[in-house]
C-alpha cells in the first residue's frame, strides 16, 4: 500500500467511525453534572454499620471521588461522585472498637458486586428458572399493593407470610401484625434461639450473652467459636486481646472444650476433647467438685434451681462418672474445677456445636449454673446481658415447616436464604413453589430469591439508612445507625422505604408511624432523648445508659423450674451403618453461606486449612489412614438424607469419630463467584430438631465416609505453595 492510499483509507474509516457513533446514543460519552462537592484525592470519612451479621459493628467509610458509569432517565453516562473505598471499624463504637473481622472488611464488595440487581425485576419464565424482565418501580409497587389488597378484600389477611433473617424484622413484624397476618418466620441455620431460651430460664433474658473477657482471669469455652463466627466476634476478640496482654502482670488463661479444634479453640492454652453432646456433663462435673470441696459458696441461684440434684451437690456428676460419659479424665476434671474456682474472675462460655445436639438445652442450662456458682453473672470479668431498648414485637412466628400447612397466598422474603440453608426434608423449596405470589428484597439472585415473582432490590448498606440493635458484645446499650455514605449506583430503593410506601398505599393503609425508613428509625430512638438521634449519626450509633422504663426487663423465674438432667444426645442414622458424627460448621469466610458471593472471601485462605475457593471434608489422620484416604482424595460422605463428594483434608485437631465440613459453598445460584462451586453440607442434614424450640439440631446427623477417587484438583490450598519450616516452636528457644 502506498502512502496516498493509506491516507485515503484512514480518512474514510475515521469518518465512518465518527458517523456510526453519532447515530448510536450509547457510544456517546455523556458527562452528568456532579451534585457533590469533593476534592480529588482527598478522602472524607463517613459513618456506617456493617450488615453482614447481627452484631452491628460501627464502620468508618473512606469516601473519595471517582468516575461512575450510571444510567439517568434512560441515558447512559458518566458522573463524578463520592464512592466508598475502604471500610474500617469505628474507633469509638463499643462493638467494633476500631477493628473488624474479615467479612466486615470484604463487605464493601456487596455494593460493587458485578451481579448485583440494578433495578426491579419480574419473573417471566417458569418459577425457579431464573428468567426475569425489568419492571418499573411504580408498576412493581402497584403489583404488591394489588396482591395485598386482594387478600384484604377477601378477608384473608392471614394468608400473608413473611420470612426474614435480618435487620428489618421489627418493621416487618409491625407491618404484618397491623395488616392482620401472623408474625414473621425467622430462620437461621446456626440459630441461637435455644441458648436464648436457656438464658431466659436461667437469667430472665432471652438474649445472647456478653463476656467481660477484658477482666477475666480464667475462661472455659464449651465449643463456642466466640473469636471467629459466633455471637459478637469483633467485640469479644478485642476483649480477648486485653485479657491476654492488656493488664500488666496478668494473663488470663483460656481452656476450650470441643471435638473439632475451632479457630477459637486453636488460641486456647489447653484444649480438651469431650464426646459429642456431653459438654453439659463436664460443666456439672466441674460444679460437683467445686461444691464438694466448698471452693465457692454453694449458691446456685435461679440457674442452679433448674438443675436436677443441685441442692444435693450434684451426686450424679462425680468426676469418675463424668469421665466415663465425657472421655475426659477424672484427674483433669478435678484440676479444671480447682482452677476455675480459684482463678476468679472466671467465666464459662457455651454456644454453637454443643447446643446443636438434641440435649442442647440441658448443656446450656448446666453451663449457666456453673457461671452462677463461679460468681460470674453480672460481675466484672463475667457474663452479662447488653441492655435492650424495648420495642413492641409479637412472639416469634412459627417454623418453616409449619409454613407449608398455612398455605400462604403472598410471601415476603427479606435477607434470608432457607432454600440453601434448611434441611432438604423441610421441603422449603416445594413450599415456596406452591405460593401464588412471592416478593423479595434481595440484592442478588440466590436459591431462594430465584423463586420470587417480583424482586425489589434493596440499596446496599452504604447507599441507604442502616441500623442494628446489637444483642451482645457491650456492657452498655447500643443502637447502631447511620445514614447513606454514598449515592446509589443503580435504580434500587431502600427496602425499609418500600415497605412503608406499600403500607401507605393499601386500600386500608397500615400506619407504621413514619413515611420513610430514616423517620422510622428516628422514632424508635425517641425514648433515648432529643440528642440521641443527632449524636448517633455522627458516630455510627448511640450508646450509653438507657433512660428508666425503656429497657427490656428480665422475666421472672418459672414457678416450677425444670429439673434438667443429662439425657444422652440422639442422632439420626444407625451407628453401625453410619459410624461417624457429622459436624457442619460456620466457615470463617462464609458463615452460613450468605457471604460466599464476595471474591475476597472466596480467595481468603481458611484459618485452619488454608483452602481457597473450595469445599472439603475433614478427617482425623488415623481415620483417614484406616480408610485409605489421603489429602485431596475425593471422598463420599453419606447420611440418611443424602450424599455428596468433596476432597479430603486431614485435620489433626479433629476427633477420630467426627467428620467435619465448612458450610458456605455449594450454591446452585449465587452470583458468578459462588454458583456451582463446591458442595453444601446442609444437604446431608437430617431434620432433627430441639424438642423445646423446634430449632434444627444441626450436629445430630450420623454419616459414613468412603474413598471415591483420586484428587480432582478441587482442593486449592494456599500453603501448598510452600511454607516456612514446619516448626511450631520457631523462635521460642532464644
Amino acid at each position, binding site marked *: 500500500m502506498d502512502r496516498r492510499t493509506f491516507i485515503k483509507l484512514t480518512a474514510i474509516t475515521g469518518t465512518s467511525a465518527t458517523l456510526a457513533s453519532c447515530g448510536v446514543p450509547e457510544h456517546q460519552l455523556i458527562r452528568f453534572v456532579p451534585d457533590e462537592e469533593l476534592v480529588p484525592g482527598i478522602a472524607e470519612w463517613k459513618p456506617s454499620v456493617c450488615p453482614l451479621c447481627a452484631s452491628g459493628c460501627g464502620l468508618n467509610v473512606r469516601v473519595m471521588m471517582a468516575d461512575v458509569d450510571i444510567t439517568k432517565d434512560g441515558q447512559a453516562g458518566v458522573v463524578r461522585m463520592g464512592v466508598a*473505598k475502604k471500610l474500617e471499624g469505628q474507633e469509638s463504637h463499643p462493638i467494633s472498637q476500631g477493628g473488624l473481622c474479615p467479612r466486615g472488611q*470484604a463487605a464493601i464488595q456487596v455494593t*460493587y458486586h458485578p451481579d448485583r440487581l440494578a433495578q426491579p425485576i419480574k419473573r417471566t419464565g417458569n418459577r425457579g428458572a431464573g428468567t426475569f424482565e425489568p419492571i418499573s418501580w411504580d408498576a412493581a409497587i402497584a403489583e404488591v399493593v394489588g396482591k395485598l389488597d386482594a387478600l384484604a378484600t377477601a378477608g384473608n389477611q392471614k394468608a400473608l407470610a413473611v420470612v426474614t433473617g435480618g435487620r428489618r424484622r421489627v418493621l416487618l413484624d409491625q407491618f404484618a401484625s397491623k395488616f392482620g397476618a401472623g408474625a414473621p418466620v425467622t430462620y437461621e441455620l446456626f440459630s441461637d434461639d435455644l441458648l436464648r431460651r436457656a438464658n431466659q430460664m436461667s437469667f430472665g433474658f432471652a438474649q445472647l450473652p456478653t463476656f467481660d473477657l477484658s477482666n477475666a482471669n480464667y475462661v472455659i469455652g464449651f465449643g463456642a467459636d466466640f473469636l471467629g463466627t459466633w455471637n459478637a466476634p469483633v467485640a469479644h476478640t478485642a476483649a480477648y486481646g486485653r485479657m491476654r496482654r492488656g493488664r500488666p502482670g496478668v494473663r488470663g488463661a483460656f481452656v476450650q472444650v470441643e471435638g473439632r479444634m475451632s479457630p477459637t479453640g486453636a488460641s486456647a492454652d489447653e484444649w480438651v476433647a469431650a464426646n459429642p453432646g456431653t459438654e453439659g456433663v463436664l460443666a456439672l462435673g466441674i460444679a460437683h467438685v467445686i461444691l464438694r470441696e466448698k471452693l465457692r459458696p454453694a449458691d446456685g441461684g435461679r440457674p442452679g434451681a433448674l438443675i436436677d440434684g443441685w441442692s444435693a451437690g450434684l451426686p450424679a456428676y462425680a468426676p469418675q462418672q463424668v469421665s466415663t460419659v465425657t472421655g475426659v479424665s477424672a484427674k483433669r476434671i478435678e484440676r479444671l474445677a480447682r482452677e476455675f474456682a480459684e482463678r476468679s474472675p472466671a467465666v464459662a462460655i457455651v454456644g454453637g456445636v454443643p447446643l446443636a445436639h438434641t440435649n442442647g438445652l440441658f448443656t446450656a442450662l448446666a453451663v449457666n449454673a456453673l457461671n452462677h456458682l463461679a460468681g460470674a453473672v453480672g460481675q466484672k470479668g463475667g457474663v452479662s446481658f447488653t441492655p435492650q431498648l424495648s420495642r413492641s414485637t409479637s412472639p416469634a412466628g412459627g417454623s418453616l415447616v409449619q409454613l407449608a400447612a398455612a398455605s400462604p397466598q403472598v410471601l415476603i422474603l427479606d435477607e434470608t436464604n432457607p432454600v440453601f440453608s434448611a434441611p432438604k426434608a423441610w421441603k422449603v423449596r416445594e413450599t415456596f413453589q406452591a405460593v401464588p405470589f412471592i416478593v423479595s428484597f434481595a440484592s442478588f439472585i440466590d436459591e431462594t430469591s430465584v423463586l420470587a415473582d417480583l424482586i425489589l432490590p434493596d440499596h446496599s448498606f452504604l447507599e441507604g439508612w442502616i441500623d442494628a440493635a446489637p444483642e451482645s458484645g457491650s456492657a452498655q446499650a447500643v443502637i447502631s445507625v447511620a445514614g447513606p455514605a454514598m449515592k446509589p449506583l443503580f435504580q434500587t430503593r431502600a427496602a425499609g422505604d418500600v415497605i412503608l410506601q406499600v403500607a401507605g398505599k393499601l386500600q386500608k393503609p397500615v400506619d407504621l408511624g413514619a413515611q420513610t425508613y430514616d423517620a422510622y428509625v428516628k422514632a424508635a430512638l425517641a425514648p433515648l432523648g432529643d440528642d440521641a438521634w443527632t449524636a448517633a449519626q455522627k458516630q455510627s450509633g448511640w450508646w450509653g445508659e438507657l433512660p428508666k422504663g425503656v429497657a427490656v426487663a428480665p422475666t421472672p423465674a418459672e414457678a416450677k423450674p425444670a429439673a434438667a438432667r443429662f439425657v444422652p444426645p440422639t442422632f439420626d442414622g444407625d451407628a453401625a451403618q453410619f459410624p461417624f458424627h457429622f459436624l457442619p460448621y460456620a466457615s470463617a469466610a462464609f458463615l452460613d453461606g450468605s457471604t460466599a458471593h464476595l471474591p*475476597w472471601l472466596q480467595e481468603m485462605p481458611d484459618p485452619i486449612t488454608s483452602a481457597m475457593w473450595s469445599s472439603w471434608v475433614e478427617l482425623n489422620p488415623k481415620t483417614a489412614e484406616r480408610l485409605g484416604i489421603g489429602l485431596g482424595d475425593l471422598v463420599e460422605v453419606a447420611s440418611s438424607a443424602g450424599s455428596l463428594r468433596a476432597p479430603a483434608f486431614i485435620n489433626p485437631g479433629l476427633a477420630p469419630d467426627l467428620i467435619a465440613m465448612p458450610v458456605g459453598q455449594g450454591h446452585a445460584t449465587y452470583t458468578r463467584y459462588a454458583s456451582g462451586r463446591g458442595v453444601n453440607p446442609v444437604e446431608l442434614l437430617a431434620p432433627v430438631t430441639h424438642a423445646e424450640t423446634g430449632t434444627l439440631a444441626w450436629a445430630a446427623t450420623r454419616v459414613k465416609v468412603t474413598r471415591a477417587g483420586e484428587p480432582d484438583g478441587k482442593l486449592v490450598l494456599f500453603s501448598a505453595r510452600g511454607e516456612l519450616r514446619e516448626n511450631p516452636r520457631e523462635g521460642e528457644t532464644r
Partner: protein
Amino acid sequence: MAHRWGMAVDLDRCTGCGACVTACHAENNIPTVGELQASRGRAMHWIRVERYFEGEFPEVSMKYRPVMCQQCDAAPCEPVCPTYASHHSEETGLNAQIYNRCIGTRYCANACPYNVRFFDFFNPVWDKPLHLQLNPDVSMREVGVMEKCTFCVQRITAATITAEAEKREVKDGEVKPACVQSCPSKALVFGDLADPESEVSRLAESPRGSKLLEDLGTAPKVTYLQGVEHA
C-alpha cells in the same frame, strides 16, 4: 530524621481470624486470581496467617503466625535484583519495590526465605463495578512485575507529609497499615524503630520477642512475641 519503620506481632493476642488478609486486599488493590490460577500457586496475599499443628489427637495444639514482608535490614531480595527494583529506602528503612524498574526476573522471590513476594502473572482484572473500590493512593501492578507488602507506604507518606506541613515529627501510633488498623485484638503494632520511645521499639526489646528465621542473618524489622513467656 530518617525512620526505621517496623512491626511487632503479639502471637498471644492473634486469633487467626484473617481480618488483616482481607484488609490488605482492600487497601492495596491486590487482585483475586480465581480458583484455577490459585490452584497453580498464583494467589497473592501480601499478608497470610500461617497455621502449625503439633501433637496428636487429643493432645493436639495449634499456633497462628501472621507473615508479611519482614522488611529486612539485610534483605536477600535486594542484592539479587539486576535492575535495583528491589532496593533499600534510606529515609524509611523499608525494603522498597519499584514496579516500573522491575523486569520480572523473579530472582528476589527465589532469594526471599519468607515466601512473601508475588509475581503478577496477569494484568489485574476487576469485574465492573468492583473497580470503583480501588484505592487511588496505590499504584496498580501490571503483568510481569513482582509485588509484596509495603507496610502501606502510602499511609506512611501521607502521615509524613501531614507532619512536615505541621512542622512536627510523626507521632507514635499515627501511622497504621491496613492490617494493623483492622486487627480486632490489636495483635499488630506498627511504629518507628528509630524512636526508642515508640511502642514497637519497646516490644522489640521484649523477652518474648524473636525474629523469624533470624539465624539466616536477614535482620528482619518484624518482631514476633511468643504466647507464653519462657524462663
